[in-house]
Each structure stands twice: as structure tokens, then as C-alpha cells.
């Protein structure tokens, strides 16, 4: 019996997509491509909270995938670890326009050096 994983984003509730795909990595990429900004997170993680605040502070509405609220969250976490290469704490992982940006340090670096905002505008997450 399938059950639905609720996927919340800030502002609206997105019905879960029942996926037949068993490959977690595929699922990750598919989820990432469905929104302009996707954050893979854990609800209790403080750094994930920080990255969410960062985007909201910029006026972006990210889609958040809480791993601890998905029954196959562990697999997805492992897939993310493989994507990132290393893992001092896997989450948060940020996708913009379907492209992998990385963990918090990459997000911060790209924001400071001015590459984040163009990416957001390109993905349609930012209009200002």
C-alpha cells in the first residue's frame, strides 16, 4: 500500500507525487526540477532553518522537502550524500532551476560573490 509523503513549501501545500521510480537519485532530480528553488532539509536541523531564512529574506519562495517526513527519506539522504561527495551533515541541499548548488557553504559563497541572485532570477524565483 502506498502512502503519500507530504511535501511542504513555504506558502503552499504540494500534493505528493506518487512515484513508481525506486531510484532515490532519480526522485531527487525529479523533485528538484519541479520547482525553481528546492531545499532538501530535516525539520529539526538548525542550519536548514538558516538557509530557509536566507531565501525567504531575499523574497524567494523555496520548496522544502523534509527528509524526516518522507518514508524513504533515508534513501534520499544517501543519494544526496553521493551527489555532494562529502558529508559533514548532509542537509541542507539546495537546487536552483533543477541544478545542484550544494550545501550551505556553497550557497553562502555564491551569494557573496554575486552569482546567486542571477541564478534565482534565471530560474524565475526572483523578480526584483
Amino acid at each position, binding site marked *: 500500500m502506498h502512502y503519500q509523503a507530504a511535501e511542504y513549501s513555504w506558502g503552499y501545500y504540494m500534493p505528493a507525487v506518487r512515484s513508481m521510480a525506486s531510484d532515490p537519485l532519480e526522485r531527487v532530480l525529479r523533485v528538484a526540477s519541479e520547482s525553481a528553488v528546492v531545499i532538501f532539509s530535516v525539520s*529539526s*536541523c*538548525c*542550519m536548514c*532553518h*538558516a*538557509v530557509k*531564512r*536566507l531565501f525567504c*529574506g*531575499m523574497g524567494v519562495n523555496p520548496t522544502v522537502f523534509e527528509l524526516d517526513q518522507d518514508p524513504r527519506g533515508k534513501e534520499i539522504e544517501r543519494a544526496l550524500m553521493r551527489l555532494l561527495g562529502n558529508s*559533514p*551533515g548532509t542537509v541542507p541541499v539546495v537546487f536552483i532551476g533543477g541544478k545542484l548548488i550544494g550545501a*550551505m*557553504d556553497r550557497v*553562502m*559563497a555564491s*551569494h*557573496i*560573490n*554575486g552569482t*546567486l541572485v542571477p541564478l534565482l532570477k534565471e530560474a524565475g524565483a526572483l523578480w526584483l
Partner: protein
Amino acid sequence: MASHRVGETGLSDSGPSNHHVPYSLFHGINAPSTSFINQEGSAFDFGELEEAIVLQGVKIRNDEAKAPLFTGRPAATLEMFPSWPTRFQTTPRVGSSKSGGESTDSGSAVNTLSSKADQAQLEPESPISKKASSSDHQAFDQKHLKLQQQQIHQEMATGPSHNQSSVKAPQEKRKGAGSTSEKQLDAKTLRRLAQNREAARKSRLRKKAYVQQLESSRIKLTQLEQDLQRARAQGLFLGGCVGAGSNLSPGAAIFDMEYARWLEDDHRLMSELRTGLHAHLSDGDLRLIIDGYVSHYDEIFQLKVVAAKSDVFHLYTGMWITPAERCFMWIGGFRPSELIKMLIGQLDPLTEQQVIGIYNLQHTSTQAEEALSQGLEQLQQALVDTIAGVPIVDGMQQMAVALSKLANLEGFVRQADNLRQQTLHQLRRILTVRQAARCFLVIGEYYGRLRALSSLWASRPRESMMSEDNSCQTTTELQIVQQHSQNHFSSY
């Protein structure tokens, strides 16, 4: 007096003689004494001394009837030298037999002893002295003593009558008449003498070993002192963190040391920057220096990554920086947006694009700081909830949860340092070479002044009876700081 006569003769032949001694008799006595001393050289020990004393005692006993030649006695030390000729005039000599079986040199040494032992004649003194000076100040050694001991035993065994044996050195003709005399030593005395000799030898060896040990320890000590000085010079500076020495974790202590060294490098690199700027170096050369300075900053951030792993509280509570710096601290270091705000006025002239870039940098760094601060707030709240909550199962589980939450602090300090590093790199990108050089100099000066402020504050006069005095002192301190800052500002 006979002794007097002999003394003079002896003096003429002996080596060092104590002319200054008033006693004429003393001269006579001293000749063999000095010869005895010469013989001993540096290996004088008390075993032989005691033996000599005992032997002298024996003679004294034998000579009870004979009154001493002089009423007064010379210095106490000299009493130990049994070479009082007159005393032994009547003592039968053991003499020649003692030296049986010995080589020439040792024979002379032995003969000196034997001469002092029997001292039958006064005449022997001069030849004895002769022998003494001719012998190369040989010290008594074991072999001689043992042989002497043997000879004594031999003497006892064979009885009193001995003639000058052929083994004796030719110098021993001095024995002359009455060459054979008996030593009146009993077996107990002999045994005791032997034991004393043995003890003396052992103590000599012990002393030698002890001295060697002392020498090696001394060398080790000087080496340790040198190492310690070198280590100190390399920077066990705790800077503003005085008194923190005892309660620093190893990771914190190591980081403090490395930070102190980094500060020294910083000072050196800043002088290089300053001279490079004033010397109007080419842009290429200046760029090299600036890139070196940026790597210098990368270094401290790398060190902080390592330190955060081992002791995040040390970084987070700011124990590694001075109190004045700590006032403005944000998550274990400087606040990037504040640094940009400070720099904005100092970087003129800037192109329009550069101005936009700088303001963008200030904006983005502010946003990033906000995000991290809010994340940290959530962490603190979660910690409070965990610790303040009622322990469900047991307190240990509660603590374990709190510990795992606390571990996130390291991540925040790392992200804050990352933000600082990225801000500096972005500054470097926006500015030209010369602007960047001035910019980094300003940054270095700024934190240098904060550190100076900390030490001034720490050393300010504390109490005064009058409040006016207080304000006066504060004003004076401000003047000092102003002068100091003026000196630094003038470099721009």
C-alpha cells in the same frame, strides 16, 4: 739540632718547601711531608692518611719514652704527617722489605711511606726528598697500596730482619744503616688499614661517578633551558588571554599559539604592504604581495576550522581575541557587514561600479549574517527546550540529546568563518591592486588598534579619590589613543 740540620739538607733537595714556616724543625718535618704530598698529587685520600696516622700512632706508642723534640706542635693538619724524624729514631726499620717486588717508581713511593713509617734516620730525608721529586708526583694507586700491604704482611711473616733486597730501587741506598726494622703492627690494625684503604677507594669511585652524573645533568639542563627559550620565543603568547593558561584545552592552547604566530606574520606582511605601497611598486609586484596577504587570511580560517573541531567554545566565546575585539564579535569572529561599513569611507576614490559592488557586498553579507543568526537562535531555543524539559526516561538521555544539538555549534562557527573568508575574497575582486593594498592595510590597522585599546584598557589607572581626576585620566588616555591613531592614519 739534628732535625734542624737534616731539615736544611732536605730542603735543598725537596721540591716545594715551606720556607715561610717559622719552625726550623718544621722544615725538617715538612720535607718528607711535602714529598709525601708531592707523591700523592691529586689523588690524596684519607685511607692512606689514616694509615699514615695509625702508623704514626704506632711509632708514637713505641716512642713513648722519647720526648718530642719540640714542645709546640705545628698546624693540626701536619700532625697527620707522621714524618717526624726524631720520633722514629729508635724505631727499628722495616724498610727495605716493604719494597720487595716493586718497580722503581712504585718502590720510591713505597719507600717514602716506609720511610715515614720507620723514619729511623734523619739522613734518609734528603734522599727521600730526592726520590720524591724525582718521582713524577705519582699518586698512590691500588696496586701500590696492595703491594705495600703485601709487603707489610710479608714483613710480619718473615720477621724483622731484612736486608736491602735487589728489587729495591737503587735510590733506596738511603736506608743505609739499620735498614731493617720491624713494623710493630698487629693483625687487627693491618686489617683495619686495609679496610680503610678499601673504603677510601670505594668513596673515590663513588665521588667520580657522582661528579660525572652531575656533569651530564648540567649539560642536559642547559639544553633544556635552550629548548624552553626557543619555544617561548616561537610564541607562547597568550595575548589578551592572560590567566587562561591553566584552563585551556589542548586544542585551544595550540590554536592560541598558532594565532599568536599568525599575528606576528600579519604584522610583518603589513609592513611589507606598507613599504610596497609607498615605494610605488608596479602593479604586478604589489599583486603578489596582496595575494600573499589573502592567503595569510585563508590560513587563519583554515586554522579555525581545525580549532572548531577540537574546541568550538574557545572560538565561540572569543577567548582567543582581546576584550575590545570581543565586544564586536559575531559567531566567533568579526562581523563582515560591519567591516564593510568601516571600509566604505576609507576606500575612496572608487569607480561607480566599485561603489555598487561594495554596497552589494554589504547587502548580501548582511542577509547571510541574518540567516545564520536566525539559525543559531533556533539552535539555542532547541537547546533550552531540551535542557529545561522534564526528563522523560532519564536525565542521561536528555543530556545526550542536548549534546547532539550542541554539536551543531561547530557548523555555525564554520559557516560564519566561511562568510568572513568569502567577504574578503570578494573585496579583493572588486578593488584594484592599489586599492586592495590600502584596504587590507586599513583592516589590519583597525584590528591592531582594537587590540591596543584592549591593552590600554587593561592597564588604565583604576581608582582615584576625586571624580575630576578620573575624568582627567580618561581624557589623557583618549589623547594617547588619538595620538596613536593619528600616527597610523597618517600613513594613508
